C-alpha cells in the first residue's frame, strides 16, 4: 500500500467524522474566499469607476468628507451647494476642461435610480459617449432623458418611452453605449432641466475637472482654490481615501473569516488527536515493521494536510460561487453600491482560489503538527500493548 492510499484510507475510515471535519474547513475557507473575493471586486470597481469618471480633479463643497467622495463614485446624491457662478469661475481657469454634475435620485416601479444633470454637449465630449439607440440631446435645455444601457434594459425603456421624474413626464431620447461603469445605471437630464425639476436653483453637486497637463495637477488645485472657496481633491487622493475606507471594511470581514478558519483548525486538531488515540495499535504495528518516527509523523501530517487540501478546494469553489450569487444583492451600504454597476459582479480570481487552497493546507498542516508529534513519540511497547 502506498503512502497516499494509506492516508486516504485512514481519513475516510470514519465517514461521519471525515465529513464533519471537512465541513468545518469548507465553511471557514468559503467565508474567507467570499470576503476576499467581494473585497477584491470592490477595489476593482472603485478603480474602474474612478477611471470612468474621467477626471483628474473633483471640486466638491468645502468640508466634504471621504464618505461624500465615495458618493461621487457611487452616483449617490450629494448636497447641491456649488453655485453656477462658482462653476463659471472654475471653468475660466486655463488648461482645464471642467464639467458640472447635479446628482439626484428618482424611482421607477419603486426601484431607486440615479439621476444626473449634465451639460449635454460638453459631457458627451468629456466622457466620449456613444449612442446605441435613438438620439442624444439636441439642445442644452431640451426636456428629455438619455439612459445608461443597463437602466434602459432594466426598466424596458426605449426611445419614445416616457420616464416620470419628480412628477414630470419626460421622453426618452436615446440610450448610451455600455460603459461598464455607473453611467450605465444612470438617467441623464440636461442640467437646467434637472435644476428646475429638483428645485436646485442654479446649484450643482460637484465639478469634474480634466487637466490638460497632468504634471500641473498640484498647480491647478492651487489655482482653483484661489478662485473659489471650495474643496478640490485629485483622483489619486480620492482613490486613496475611498480605498482606505474599503480597506478597513475588508480587514474586519477577513478577521471574521479568520475566526471561522481558526475554529476549523481546532476541529482538525480534535479529529487528529482522536485518530492518534484510536490508532495506537496500528502505530505500534507500523513501528514493529520498521517504520521510523518521521514516517509516522509524516503520515499524520499528510492526513491533516489532505483535510486542508480537500476542504480548501471545496471551500474556494463554494466561496466563489457564493460571492458571485451574493454580490448583486449586497447593496445596502456605500461600500458595496459599486457592485450594482453593469459589471458582472464577482470575478473568479484564480490567484485567490489557489492562495486559499494553499492557505487551507498550511493551516491544516499546522493543526496536525501536535497530534502527529504525539503519534510519532509513542514507544513501540506502549503502542502495541494498547487495547
Amino acid at each position: 500500500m502506498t503512502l497516499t492510499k494509506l492516508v486516504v484510507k485512514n481519513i475516510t475510515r470514519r465517514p461521519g467524522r471525515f465529513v464533519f471535519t471537512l465541513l468545518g474547513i469548507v465553511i471557514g475557507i468559503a467565508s474567507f474566499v467570499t470576503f476576499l473575493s467581494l473585497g477584491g471586486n470592490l477595489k476593482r470597481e472603485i478603480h474602474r469607476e474612478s477611471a470612468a469618471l474621467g477626471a483628474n480633479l473633483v471640486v466638491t463643497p468645502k468640508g466634504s468628507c471621504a464618505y461624500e467622495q465615495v458618493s461621487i463614485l457611487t452616483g449617490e446624491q450629494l448636497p447641491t451647494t456649488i453655485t453656477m457662478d462658482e462653476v463659471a469661475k472654475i471653468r475660466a481657469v486655463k488648461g482645464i476642461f471642467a464639467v458640472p454634475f447635479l446628482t439626484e435620485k428618482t424611482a421607477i416601479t419603486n426601484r431607486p435610480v440615479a439621476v444626473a444633470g449634465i451639460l449635454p454637449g460638453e459631457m458627451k465630449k468629456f466622457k466620449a459617449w456613444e449612442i446605441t439607440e435613438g438620439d442624444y440631446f439636441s439642445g442644452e435645455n431640451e426636456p428629455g432623458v438619455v439612459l445608461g444601457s443597463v437602466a434602459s434594459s432594466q426598466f424596458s425603456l426605449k426611445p419614445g418611452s416616457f420616464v416620470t421624474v419628480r412628477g414630470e413626464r419626460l421622453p426618452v431620447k436615446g440610450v448610451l453605449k455600455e460603459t461598464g461603469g455607473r453611467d450605465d445605471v444612470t438617467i441623464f437630464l440636461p442640467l437646467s432641466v434637472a435644476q428646475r425639476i429638483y428645485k436646485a436653483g442654479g446649484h450643482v453637486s460637484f465639478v469634474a475637472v480634466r487637466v490638460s497637463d497632468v504634471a500641473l495637477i498640484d498647480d491647478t488645485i492651487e489655482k482653483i482654490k484661489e478662485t473659489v472657496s471650495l474643496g478640490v481633491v485629485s483622483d489619486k487622493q480620492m482613490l486613496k481615501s475611498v480605498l482606505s475606507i474599503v480597506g478597513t471594511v475588508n480587514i474586519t470581514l477577513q478577521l471574521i473569516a479568520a475566526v471561522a478558519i481558526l475554529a476549523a483548525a481546532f476541529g482538525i486538531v480534535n479529529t487528529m488527536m482522536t485518530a492518534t488515540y484510536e490508532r495506537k495499535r496500528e502505530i505500534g504495528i507500523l513501528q514493529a515493521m520498521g517504520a521510523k518516527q518521521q514516517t509516522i509523523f509524516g503520515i499524520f501530517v499528510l492526513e491533516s494536510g489532505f483535510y486542508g487540501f480537500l476542504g480548501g478546494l471545496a471551500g474556494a469553489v463554494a466561496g466563489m460561487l457564493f460571492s458571485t450569487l451574493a454580490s448583486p444583492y449586497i447593496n445596502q451600504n456605500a461600500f458595496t453600491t459599486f457592485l450594482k454597476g453593469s459589471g458582472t459582479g464577482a470575478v473568479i480570481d484564480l490567484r485567490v482560489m489557489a492562495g486559499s487552497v494553499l492557505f487551507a493546507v498550511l493551516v491544516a498542516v499546522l493543526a496536525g503538527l501536535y497530534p502527529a508529534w504525539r503519534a510519532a513519540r509513542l514507544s513501540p511497547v506502549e503502542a502495541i500493548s494498547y487495547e
Partner: protein
Amino acid sequence: MKKNIKYALIAAGVGIVLAAGFLMANKATALNVNDVASDPAAFSGTITITGVVAGVSKQDPSIIGMMDKKELQCTTPGCKKFYLPFKAQAYSPAPGDEVRATGRFETYAAGYIFVADSVTVVKNHKIGG
C-alpha cells in the same frame, strides 16, 4: 453513519437555500433614506425604509426626522444631512434608533411625509452623546 452524512448534506443544502432566500428577501424590501429623499412621489404603495432617528420636530412632535445610515459616518461640519419626516403611531422615538419603518408616503401641506404602519427598532447608535 451513511445516514448521518446524508442528513448533514441535506442540512447544509437547506442552510444555503435559506441564506440565499434571506439575502434576496432583504434586497426586495428595504430602501435607504437617501434613496427616497429626492423624489418621494416616485414611490407608490407600501414600502420599507431603513434609517436612523435624528430627532423630533419642535413644531409638531408627532413628526420624526430620520436620516440615512451613512450619515452616521460623516462627522465633518460640511456634511449636509437630509432628514426624512415620518409619522408613526405606536413608536416612541429615541435619537439614534436605527429603524425599519413600513408604510407609505402621504401628501401634507408641508410636503411628503412617510406614514409608518409599523416600526422596528434594529439598534440604537447613541448619537449626540
